[in-house]
């Protein structure tokens, strides 16, 4: 895992994904490495999706979080290894669910839900698993749109990416 001091971890933890404000970038697993070189923190982050428009904002937010603490940071965008939803921490998954976004399951579950073979994604509103996928593409690149057959509420599901 990351080798960083508590102070830096806390600082990075204060930065969140602008699309999902409850989810810290640390819990999202996009901070890959932090090096301290010549008075500057070099922070490696990796995008969730290639075209994720939040990446630039996240980079800026990290730099300002450091600046606010009189520290300097530089962002380096790394592509390899590619991000996977497995890197979302337990705490992150809980935050997603509390926010109303069903946390990612597995590729098999995604496929079964798509083909209508199995109802396994839990409604974030009423907890029923009697749900259906409305669209594989949702409000952002990382989410799919679901609807609950019981309470009829629509909700987002964080797509599994491996």
């Amino acid at each position, binding site marked *: 895992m990351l080798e960083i001091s508590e102070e830096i971890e806390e600082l990075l933890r204060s930065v969140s994904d602008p699309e999902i404000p409850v989810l810290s970038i640390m819990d999202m697993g996009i901070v890959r490495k932090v090096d301290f070189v010549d008075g500057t923190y070099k922070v490696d982050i990796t995008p969730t999706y*290639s075209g994720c428009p939040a990446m630039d904002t996240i980079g800026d937010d990290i730099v300002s979080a450091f600046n606010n603490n009189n520290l300097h940071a530089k962002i380096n965008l790394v592509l390899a290894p590619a991000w996977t939803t497995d890197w979302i921490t337990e705490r992150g998954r809980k935050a997603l669910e509390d926010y109303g976004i069903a946390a990612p399951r597995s590729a098999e579950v995604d496929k079964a839900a798509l083909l209508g073979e199995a109802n396994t994604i839990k409604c974030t509103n009423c907890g029923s698993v009697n749900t259906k996928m409305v669209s594989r593409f949702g409000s952002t690149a990382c989410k799919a*749109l679901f609807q609950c057959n019981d309470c009829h509420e629509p909700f987002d599901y964080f797509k599994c990416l491996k």
Partner: protein
Amino acid sequence: MLQEKLYEYLLHLGDNSMILGQRLGELCGHGPELETDIALTNISLDLFGQVRNYFQAAAQIKGGDATEDTIAMLRYEHEYKNVYLVEQPNDDFAHVIVRQFFFDVYHQLLLNELIKSKNETLVAIAKKSIKEVDYHVDFSSTWVKRLGDGTEVSHEKMQTAVNTLWRYSMELFNATEVEQWAAESGVGPDLDALKPFYISRVEEVLHEATLTLPEETVFQYGAKTGRHSENMGYILVDFQYMQRAYPNMKW
């Protein structure tokens, strides 16, 4: 010299995704239903994200003032290396889906080969992109089946789109000098070797969709080397407008 070829190869890879992404972007707010509208623009976003990665790498090679934006925005029509297929217009939803399907199947095969490239940057981009493109293939294949094997009208529209667009498919596999260099040096795949896989995958889905490939097709070649169709000028007018009208403007 090698770097120059790699630069050209990156343009080959990026331009297809970029022009298709632009075509899909035109549909923003015009999709046949909300979910499809969002799906198509999401795919566009994925493609543009991938293009940024290719062009950032290309800009590094080029050096000087080159950035991903100058490479994307400031070339002339004949300098773009995309195929005819991706510049075809959004005539109707059938054409949008069939164009997407013909490209997605190729894109998936290509990326699955690029993850074995000798170039590390390409491996990283391909490994990232393949996860997204797997979703694209699922999306377009599902629609091909749904509409092909749908009503009489949807079937007919899909068959018309297949008949119109198939002639642009083989250009994808017609290697240019740069693509040949890539294959010989282990940077990219041997496109010719991918062709049989492509045809069988396309036929598999079309068969399930009760659609057929046209029997006698005169395939069209040339866009990759800069001889674009009339469509391309109109695309670039839209695409480059801001940079041409207000040079160096920033978002």
